[in-house]
């Protein structure tokens, strides 16, 4: 009798627990839907340069769903665009804390660290972003710039090449690789990359200047 009663109690406890879980996931889903739409709205506003309004929407998303890593990452981007670098870095940190696999956040954190002059830390973040997602061509380019500045020319060339391989239409990476090669005295190769950069972006002034300089040095 006692055993039977105990089984009934366990049965009811099980029903109660799963019912409670069900109610909480439904509530969670509703909050998620709301916060996703605020986040999306923020992205649209960021896209048209309305960063203040975007920040407001990201913050509303986060007030509903405080563990929303993507919204922290996007908020960090909008703050960075406004020049609020410290706040931006704090948001990237939070995004990474909430989702340690968010490669974009590591990449963005690297950018803000670069802007803050913390190059070694930025290199670390870029490398980690690429270990999570090797297809982030912009991160390859950003990392290559820092490596080149630090004297690791081979590493820089390798990452520029990877950026170009991933995105052949990446004019900046062509120009940067050209500059690095020119710095090595490899003007012929550099000219090819400058020409390609101009072909991709016909109004690319830096690449045009670099091309002229490389041609004059080749003579």
């Amino acid at each position, binding site marked *: 009798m006692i055993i*039977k009663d105990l*089984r*009934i109690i*366990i*049965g*009811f406890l*099980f*029903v109660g627990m*799963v*019912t409670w879980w*069900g109610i909480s*996931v*439904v509530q*969670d*889903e509703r909050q*998620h839907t709301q916060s996703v739409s605020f986040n999306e709205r923020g*992205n*649209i506003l960021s896209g048209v340069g309305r960063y203040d309004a975007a920040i407001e929407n990201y913050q509303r998303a986060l007030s509903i769903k405080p563990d929303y890593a993507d919204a922290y990452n996007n908020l960090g981007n909008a703050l960075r665009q406004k020049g609020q670098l410290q706040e931006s870095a704090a948001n990237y940190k939070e995004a990474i804390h909430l989702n340690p*696999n968010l490669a974009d956040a590591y990449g963005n954190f690297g950018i803000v660290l670069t802007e803050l002059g913390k190059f070694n830390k930025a290199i670390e973040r870029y490398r980690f972003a690429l270990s999570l*997602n090797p*297809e982030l061509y912009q991160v390859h380019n950003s990392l290559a710039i820092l490596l080149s500045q630090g004297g690791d020319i081979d590493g820089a060339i390798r990452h520029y090449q990877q950026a170009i391989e*991933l*995105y*052949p*239409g*990446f004019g900046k990476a062509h120009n940067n690789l050209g500059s690095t090669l020119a710095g090595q005295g490899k003007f012929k190769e550099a000219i090819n990359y400058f020409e390609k950069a101009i072909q*991709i972006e016909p109004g690319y002034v830096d690449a045009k200047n670099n091309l002229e300089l490389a041609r004059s040095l080749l003579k």
Partner: protein
Amino acid sequence: MQNRHNYQGVYLTGLAVLFFALTVWIRFRLSSVPLERDEGEYAYMAQQLLQGILPYSETQSMKFPGIYFVYAGILTLFGESPSAIHLSLILFNLATAFILFLLGRHLLNLTAGVFAAVSFSVLTLSPEVQGLWANSEHFVLLPALAGILLLLVMKGGPAKFFLSGILLGSSLLIKQHAVFYCLFGAFYMGFRFLSRTQSLKIRDITLFAVGGIIPLLLTLILYSLSGHMAQFWFSTVQYASEYVSLTSFREGYENFKYSFARILEYNFSILWLALIGLASIAWVKDKKERFVFLFSFFIFLFLAITPGFYFRPHYFLLWIPALCLLAGAGVESLVYGLSSPKIKNFTRTVVIFVALAIPFLLQKDIFFNMTPFQVTRMVYGLNPFAESLQVASYIREHSSENQKVAVLGSEAQIYFFSNRKSATRHIYMYPLMERHVYARGMRSELVREIETNQPEFVVIANLGGSWVSQRPYIPPTLNDWSQVYLKHNYEIRGVVDIRAGQKSVFKWDEEAKSYNPKSRYHLLIYKRRS
């Protein structure tokens, strides 16, 4: 006593007829919902099959070929319109509900069987499982459940084991996820063999296994003989195994939680009864063997929705039969302790009515008021499913039968409706965008094939849903290539501006050239310069 049973039977029959009639009427009313992208893929591949082109020979898809054969049958018997395809689903759905009724009646009792069948019909109608659309899961269920029913019934000679194997093996050919139905069949046979509750012989088990392997074996032979084994293997095994390993456990749990929460929100009454049914193992004393069936069925069918941890809404259709049988058990266990038959029957009838009525009440706008277009928008957002019909119609009118089309996006329904061949084997962009070892090669292959085949029309789908991306644009590498390629060889002939809360704007020919879409979500239709 006899009268009471008769009354119970009358009430039960009345409720079943009422709710079945409602579900069938709603399916009829909304049968003209446009084909969504999975349906478009199945229909296009089936159309190709009917023209003698074997799946995978010219098109890449990770799904097993059974669903294309099912669709080929539907297109032949019912016609090629979205309504025809969705009306055929009514027959499949009712037939599956009937099999579930037989399972429920055999396992539990008549009431539980009827409730399981009707609740199956109600749950599978829900927009939260995209139940109005003819996804492959609907077609897995009929042979899979029939195969399991054959295992369960005592009567019949050894041939029934062979037939059961064939049916379960056929369900696997429709969707790989059905392997868990097959494993359940094997598990249940093993259980009965070991517990000696049925005089099973090794011969029966062998027949079951042989029957199960035959459909797959025949498929392998077919592809070996046709010389397309490499494409079949790459699509359904090599790429598919990459596909199922892209999502982490944590992301998987989030996917499950959000998809399940939406189903639960609108169908909680039936699902709560399923929970009661699951918990009733603790207090219902007799017929323990049936709970082994129900509990293991519940677990195996849950596993059927887990591959890849995507938990897309329509995957849940595979879990629903187990939930409905448990809900049937739940109704019975709720009245289990009641001593008065009169109160028992009354309670049972009220519980069944309320449990089935709540989903209709909560989804009444969708079921009774919204137009098929509105329902599609509500479920699929700004995806261009309704718009695809007009785009396809324009392409059909402005191209000849042997000319090809390329869609940069995952909108295979455009190929199907226009009845034009794809210029590339990649009719779905998702595999090209995901992070796996084959993605870059697939993107290069797409570019190469389009440049070689020179399609008469190129359609660009500028919307995230077509590219498995959060952002509504096509990826930079393909974008750059397409811009250069289209600029030199094509001219714009159509723009479809897809706007939220408004009708889409269609601009064709001269009007299209000067039109800038207002929405981020739009289709661009390019025609090859003569």
